[in-house]
């Protein structure tokens, strides 16, 4: 049984089909990517998994427990953490406090949550900024904070929504390294939406391609980027960067 099972997921907004009949699995301990051109329904898919809005049809299950119909906070408590495409730091709180909020998901005690926050901040190399307000961070740092906060909730699966966007290539490589280590050391399962192919190729064991809300292809990254359908709709002349 896969850790995350998405089955025939569908959602329309005022008659516009954003996601239709999308099914895929994410195996425990793996890293999978969800790619596709702008407007393909990737973020909608994430929002459906995370419970931001209810699906019109289909189902989502985590380790066999259904997530369908749960609110975002309940989905998080079931073990699904997510980051936002447009980062949402708690701007007036310090970096540590931001992560403490995440850590309090599983820890009742603030002191324990602070210790956990320090540990997680070290994982993403933000410990030097721990006492600064989140508002003072640069964009790459904010993205790392977003990740740290999500990890601190101790998820079974981490959904990353374009965390590489806007980063320089060296920063992308650092971020890739962070996720590799997380995946390797703690067995964290990761599902990422990504446009930066450099990151997708480096991280993902499996890639699901969406186009106009439908899954058009699924497979290993090397195979997917050679698929004519994918090349036509999405990669175009850009191919591998």
């Amino acid at each position, binding site marked *: 049984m896969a850790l995350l099972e998405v089955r025939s997921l569908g959602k329309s907004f005022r008659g516009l089909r954003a996601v239709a009949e999308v099914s895929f699995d994410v195996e425990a301990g793996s890293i999978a990517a969800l790619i596709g051109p702008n407007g393909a329904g990737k973020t909608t898919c994430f929002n459906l998994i*995370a419970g*931001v809005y209810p699906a019109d049809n289909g189902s989502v299950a985590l380790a066999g427990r259904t997530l369908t119909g749960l*609110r*975002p*906070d*309940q989905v*998080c*408590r079931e073990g699904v*953490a*997510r980051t*936002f495409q447009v980062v*949402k*730091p*708690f*701007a*007036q*709180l*310090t970096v*540590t*406090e931001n992560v*403490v*909020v*995440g850590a*309090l*998901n599983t820890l*009742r005690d*603030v002191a324990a*949550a602070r210790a956990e926050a320090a540990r997680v901040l070290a994982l993403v190399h933000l*410990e*030097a900024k*721990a*006492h600064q*307000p989140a508002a003072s961070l640069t964009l790459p740092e904010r993205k790392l904070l977003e990740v740290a*906060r*999500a990890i601190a*909730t101790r998820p079974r699966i981490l959904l990353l929504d374009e965390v590489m966007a806007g980063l320089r290539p060296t920063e992308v490589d650092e971020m890739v390294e962070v996720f590799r280590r997380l995946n390797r050391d703690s067995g964290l399962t990761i599902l990422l939406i990504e446009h930066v192919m450099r990151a997708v190729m480096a991280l993902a064991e499996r890639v699901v391609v969406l186009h106009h809300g439908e899954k058009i292809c699924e497979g290993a990254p090397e195979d997917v980027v050679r698929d004519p359908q994918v090349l036509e709709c999405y990669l175009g002349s850009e191919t591998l960067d």
Partner: protein
Amino acid sequence: MSGRPETVAAAASRSVVRASDAAYSRRAVVLLSLLLLALLALPLFADAYLLSAAILVLYFAYVGQAWNLMMGYCGQLSLGHSLYVGVGAYAAAALFVHFGVSPWIGAMAAVAASLAFAALIGVLAFRFGIGGVYFALLTIAFAEFTRIGFDHFDWVGGSGGFFLPVKEFGTIDLWRLRGPPAMFYYFVLAMAVAAFLAAWRLRESRIGYYWLAIREDEDAARALGIDTFRYKLAAILVSGGMTSIAGVFFAFYYNTLFPEQIFSMARSIEIILGPIIGGLGTLFGPVLGAFVLTLLGEAMTALTDALGISVPGLKQVFYGVCLLIVVLFLPNGIWPELAKRLGLRHAPGDR
């Protein structure tokens, strides 16, 4: 290994921050103790006028703290907190006058009644996703129609007012809360200190972090496992319940209640000015704001009296000017700036 010196350096910088944190908090404790001592000694040398002004300061420090929990920490703007003052005041006063029930028991009824109102507003607003300006309007609406209700509530005097018997003023009867101004002073001082400590404990606990997260970004808070409905409801219940105790004090200190006054919008605004001017979402903001506003207001009244000028509404204009100055020059309130000057770093997360 290049990682190792880095870790040592990071650990060293962390311990430096911790050491200075300790120095800051030591200084804060010393200053707080001095302030508390001065406040405890005040009735020994204060005349009746100064004592009444001090009571007002502490009263606003208390309600400001209660309101700040909801707005400053959880980000939910209530412009109708006079509702809880009024409901609390009437509940305790009615039980006392009609049945001779002690205000200590009456306070429980006051809190219960206020919690019922707070729960009604909270469930209505937060269940249906009413936030921001619309939530503020809802709180005003509730305060207004409760006022109208009490205007026609003859059991407690209706619009003609409700009066507590005033007698045996020289003796102290703590059980029935009858006594000289000094007794009320110490009573409200205890309330203000308790509110300060409660706000501090809440701020440092799980619920405090969750409130701040909701204030900062509700979607992000939800994504981190926070049941925002539950925690916003907790904020309005705690804040409303606390505020109703101020109502009990108000009733027994002033002994007269008029729906038109106690439930009025102006009263709600008075409650929120202190924390805004002092510093929203800070522990000291409501205290400082109450001091600054009340004392400046009283000073101005004394000045205009001495000069023989009488302009109706001058105090309101004065409050407006104070608010304008703070919003323009110190948008975070006086406290964060003052804390920096005093060498007291304001707690992270305070704004």
